[in-house]
């Protein structure tokens, strides 16, 4: 049976009604109209649906709604806008770090979690943090460069 849940998404409390086992991905995309998290596999293998839960990157496609009650969720829409881009978003634009871009929002969220815990990551740290993120277009080099660039831009701000 559908149940009512209160979620904290991007700092706002929102009420939704759905089956408790509904993957968070569909709640974000269809109930809250936040399209930044994207469906790729539904089984936690590609990273396209990645968002932050209490600051940690999780795959929203295999996170049920009941598991996020009381946690705070951040999606790509919550980290920056065209007017006020997050340094990572600015760096991805500056490096033109995307081709089709479908994987990018998930990668941005994992990168944010990485920089939040490790402000000066090495290439190896980046590769590890993005271990579960697939990019079929082959934007890997630019993505690494963009993360380094953002790390530099954010230096001292934390």
């Amino acid at each position, binding site marked *: 049976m*559908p149940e009512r849940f209160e979620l904290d998404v991007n700092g706002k409390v929102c009420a939704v009604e*759905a*089956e408790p086992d*509904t*993957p968070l991905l*569909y709640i974000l*995309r*269809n109930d809250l*109209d*936040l*399209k*930044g*998290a*994207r*469906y*790729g*596999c*539904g*089984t936690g*293998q*590609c990273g*396209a649906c990645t968002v932050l839960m209490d600051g940690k990157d999780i795959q929203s496609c295999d996170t049920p709604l009941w598991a996020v009650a009381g946690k705070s969720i951040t*999606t*790509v*829409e919550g980290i*920056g*806008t*065209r007017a006020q*881009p997050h340094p990572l*978003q600015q760096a*991805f*634009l500056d490096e*033109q770090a*995307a*081709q*089709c*871009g*479908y*994987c*990018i*929002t998930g990668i*941005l969220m994992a990168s944010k979690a990485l920089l939040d815990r490790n402000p000066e990551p090495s290439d190896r740290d*980046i*590769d*590890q943090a*993005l*271990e579960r*993120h*697939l*990019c*079929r*277009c*082959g*934007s*890997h*080099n*630019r*993505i*690494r460069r963009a993360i380094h660039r953002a790390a530099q831009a954010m230096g001292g701000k934390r």
Partner: protein
Amino acid sequence: MSTAADKPVLPGSLNANRSLARWIRINDDGTVAVRVGKVEIGQGILTALAQIAADELDVELHQVRIVTANTESNPNEGMTSGSRSVEESGEALRYVCAEVRALFMQAAARALAASIEKLQVSEGVFHVDGKRTSYWDLAAEVDLVREASAQVPPKQAADLTIVGRYAQRIDLPAKIFGEPAYIQDMALPGLAHGRIVRPPNYAAKLLSLDDAGVRALPGVIAVVRDGDFLGVVAEREEQAIKAAAVLAQACRWDAPRQLPHEAQIYDYLTSRPVETAVISDKKDEKAKARTHTTLEATYRKPYIAHASIGPSCAIARYDGERYELWSHSQGIYPLRGDMVKCLRVPADRIVVHHADGSGCYGHNGADDVALDAALLARAVSPRPVRVQWMRADESGWEPFGPAMVMKLKASTDAQGNIVDWTHETWSNPHSNRSGRGPGSTLIAAPHMADPVPVSPPIDSPLPAGASHRNAIPLYEFPNQKVARHLIMDTPLRISALRALGGFANVFAIESMLDELAIACGADPVEFRLRHLKDARARAVIERVAQMADWKSGEKGDGTRGRGIGFCKYKNLGSYCAVIAEVVLEQELRVVKAWAAVDIGRVVNPNGAINQIEGGVLQATSWTLKEAVRFDDNFVTSLGWDTYPILTFAEAPRVEVQLIDRPSETSKGAGEGAQGPTGAAIVNALHNAVGVRVRELPLTRERIMAAMA
């Protein structure tokens, strides 16, 4: 009245879309609408086309609005494929925009009572002696509903100010800020969600269905059955997914197991009936008589998936009379052609809009899912239905790049010159696209109760070729025979994958070249140059050798080594040479790749380099890891665990240099790196450890077996 046949041939896609108004409209908000038929598939084409238009019109890039392709207003430019968009759409736009600019110059000269020669144009404003007017002031006076003459010459290379410079991709901000940018994100009022239940294999027939339980599930609007086509529509996406899973359990299928076994696939293919064509035949008996060393080898490449990260998606709406479709197809007009047959309504009752999708790298499930969505939408008219395939739908049912076998035999003389060359390629055709043939190629077409026959796949002819793409070497050999054996029996569903047969043919040619160089004790770079006259080909090879600081005769150290690969894509497109550095650890790893590329006049250097980097990385993934898995029933690689692709930790550093040739025509950059990269890796493996692996992918087992 003259007929189309007597009309002069106009450049690129202009020939088939001859009205200026079809391409350009002056908007009243200070921008210019540019309508094209080519579509964005992550390759940055719309940015490159906007640059071309802006430059010719003398407006700024931000004043150009590209109108996404649709079958109502935009020109019909067929497919966005084969790295032809800059040549076809770009050439058309150069002439269209030059002519539009000239018409407005005349109008401006009249309005300002000045001579045309004195007029200056910038940012869309025409000025002379302090007086000014603009495209927008004059829009009402210049009628663009007229046939293009293509008589106004576009700018000379030296006068271009936007083409050839850095331009940020116009579509990327939306994608990076997580705005609704893809078809997957489109929301229409009343949108319902559909999912498909496919048969268990290609040949299966539905025996019975007990769908009462599915209909009773929460949110289910309809269970749709049309022959062997099955789907569900529900209010919510997760409800549709659950209902489809239950529906799959509610079917009984007759599903004969008909596929050849994976382990025998190459024998199976080469023993089928073939249509053989000799595509190159050169004879020089005197040279042949000098034969000293002869090598023979067979190379194999498996089925490879497009493996888009975002599974295919479409939205359809049927109001009882007209269908409206949104699709990430590479060819919205050809797709509409198949829709006419499958939906059995005339073309003027179907509108197809293009919407961006996840990168496709060729013909994936984009077209198929559009028919799925239309069939579901018809059942719940007038509600719009969004269908996104599940991962397993995409991985199992997308058309794959065909498996191929190449048998090569070559001889050198005592001085190490190749005197004889034979190349035979066995392959299925490489295109199953929509819009051709008597029937349809869409998955659901033959499943429907009133089926539409399946159109046979086609293999586009030379010079571009398909299965025989790049089978004729660019190197100069006195004796040469190249044959293509086309296998029409297609056990797995196949269609165009980036570079088509060019990937496998170049892998084979460039491997054999390396084998010969080694047999002759020659350096592989020097050996290639020895057999090449084409100056642009030589230039990319010399450049990449320089970039990588290649040492003549360099040898690997037992685990680490480097190799080279080269091709002129389609023998008429870009030139690309790649050097790869590999190291054999637990698995073979590519640590670095260098690419030198000549695509003629470069429109957007950063965009081109992005495409080439991507091509190198994707081809690295194909070469090291990828093969579609199947058993005698169906495809078994239905997810990323069974079809692994390159990860971040496995992605080599890539360095790309463009050799800009402003006075040569622009060529696409999207596909040229595939063949050279695969070949460079295979050759680097040999350089590293001294073994030759002739079957892809280069898995640990295969390398170990070769070393044993």
